[in-house]
């Protein structure tokens, strides 16, 4: 993070100011991505007036960075009216997330005129047959890439977001090369989010251990592989007092229906801006304050895990698994792929499984590693595993 932004974030944390908010303007979409966790029907989106009122409340609450996302934001007929209000009147730092299918030269010029900070566009592959098979819209890669060029030619900052799944896993080096050729940034995300209603079936599209290992050992992505994949040391007292992440502390998420959540990936209901003021939900919601009270030392299972000080554990994904103070299996998989050391959660599950399935001899590759370290202290096993 930029040093000054880090300082401002620390100040916002002390003052309980929501510095950054993602607002989804709609869940409607003109693509049908196979991994998408949203219900695309309109169940009563906020009106233009309601959103303007909310934006004013958010500016008054101190929100500085406003990410407008969806669904597809350009499906809202009032999109530019809202953007103009957010930028010209309220002076938010606005970031957009879009599939860019509806951005042509004219839209790109307007986005530039309104001083948008960056536009993030989902690109799944450099190959139309792969990208379009994920979005389920023929011709979508071409349209999105045309938009990248229109935006870039306006001098805007464009970020290609590449979500990794089984279908496109092998294409990320070419997507990164394409981004470099277009002169835009590229981010890579191996996280598939479960549906908001808790349906976890889309997780089967997520990349497997072998693929994760490949990503985490790619020096062009992670820098120093040895350092990135190193097994972490025991956390000190200070680390145990750390906050899990920014969700509910300096950032939150608002749905098109006005529901406020700690994060887009953390669907714990905390209030609705149609019934309460945004600032009252932020400051006084019991659920928000519950999230805020959690420190690393309060986590179940994770505090006894050797990865606790280096893990990317997402409390939202943990919540979707049933306990926001618990482990997140997807992050356990990542920690395991990074270091080769199974997490406390994996070991606990293994023990529970072993108790139920005594005599089972079905040993997969992961099982072999887990059985080797099962009875011992995880930290000791980790050290000996690398010796």
């Amino acid at each position, binding site marked *: 993070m930029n040093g000054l*932004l880090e300082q401002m974030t620390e*100040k916002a944390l002390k003052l309980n100011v929501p*510095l950054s908010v993602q607002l989804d303007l709609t869940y409607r979409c003109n693509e049908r991505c196979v991994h998408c966790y949203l219900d695309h029907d309109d169940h009563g989106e906020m009106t233009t007036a309601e959103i303007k009122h909310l934006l004013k409340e958010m500016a008054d609450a101190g929100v*500085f960075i406003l990410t407008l996302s969806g669904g597809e934001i350009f499906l809202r007929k009032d999109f530019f009216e809202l953007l103009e209000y957010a930028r*010209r009147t309220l*002076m938010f*730092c606005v970031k957009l997330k879009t599939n860019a299918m509806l951005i042509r030269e004219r839209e790109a010029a307007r986005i530039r005129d309104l*001083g948008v900070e960056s536009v993030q566009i989902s690109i799944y592959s450099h190959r139309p047959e792969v990208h379009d098979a994920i979005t389920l819209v023929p011709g979508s890669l071409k349209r999105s890439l045309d938009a990248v060029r229109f935006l870039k030619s306006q001098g805007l900052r464009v970020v290609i977001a590449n979500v990794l799944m089984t279908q496109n896993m092998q294409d990320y080096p070419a997507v990164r090369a394409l981004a470099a050729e277009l002169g835009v940034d590229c981010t890579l995300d191996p996280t598939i989010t479960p549906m908001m209603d808790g349906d976890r079936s889309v997780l089967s599209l997520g990349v497997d251990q072998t693929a994760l290992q490949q990503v985490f050992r790619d020096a062009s992505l992670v820098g120093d592989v040895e350092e990135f994949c190193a097994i972490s040391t025991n956390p000190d007292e200070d680390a145990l007092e750390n906050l899990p992440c920014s969700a509910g502390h300096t950032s939150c998420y608002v749905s098109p229906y006005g529901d406020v959540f700690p994060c887009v990936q953390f669907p714990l209901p905390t209030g609705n801006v149609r019934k309460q003021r945004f600032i009252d939900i932020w400051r006084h919601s019991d659920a928000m304050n519950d999230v805020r009270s959690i420190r690393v030392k309060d986590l179940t299972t994770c505090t006894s895990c050797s990865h606790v000080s280096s893990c990317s554990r997402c409390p939202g994904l943990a919540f979707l698994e049933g306990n926001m103070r618990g482990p997140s299996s997807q992050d356990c998989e990542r920690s395991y792929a990074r270091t080769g050391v199974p997490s406390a959660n994996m070991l606990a599950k293994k023990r529970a499984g072993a108790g139920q399935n005594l005599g089972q001899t079905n040993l997969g590759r992961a099982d072999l590693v887990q059985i080797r370290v099962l009875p011992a202290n995880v930290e000791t096993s980790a050290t000996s595993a690398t010796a």
Partner: protein
Amino acid sequence: MSRLYVARNPRVAARSLDGEMMIMSGRDSTLFTLNKTATILWQSADGTTPLDEIVEHRICQEFEVEPAEALHDAETLARELASHEIIQISEEPIPQPNPAAGESR
């Protein structure tokens, strides 16, 4: 001597955090924070009030400084803020699209 007019650049993002102004450049997303004098200048930069009036009515009122010295310092500050495209300066009044100063809260 000709008068100087200052106006907030509508391309920046701005918000006050506990009285401290955060400004993000529209040119390259660099983040700035403004000190007390620069914040007053930013808040007063409506494009129509000349800098000498801003100095006389806002800056000299807030800090006990000589008007001539304060005006000199304010001009230097205004030119520096303009070099980062945070404000615009001109010898003519600068029409503004709206009066916002990003200082909700």
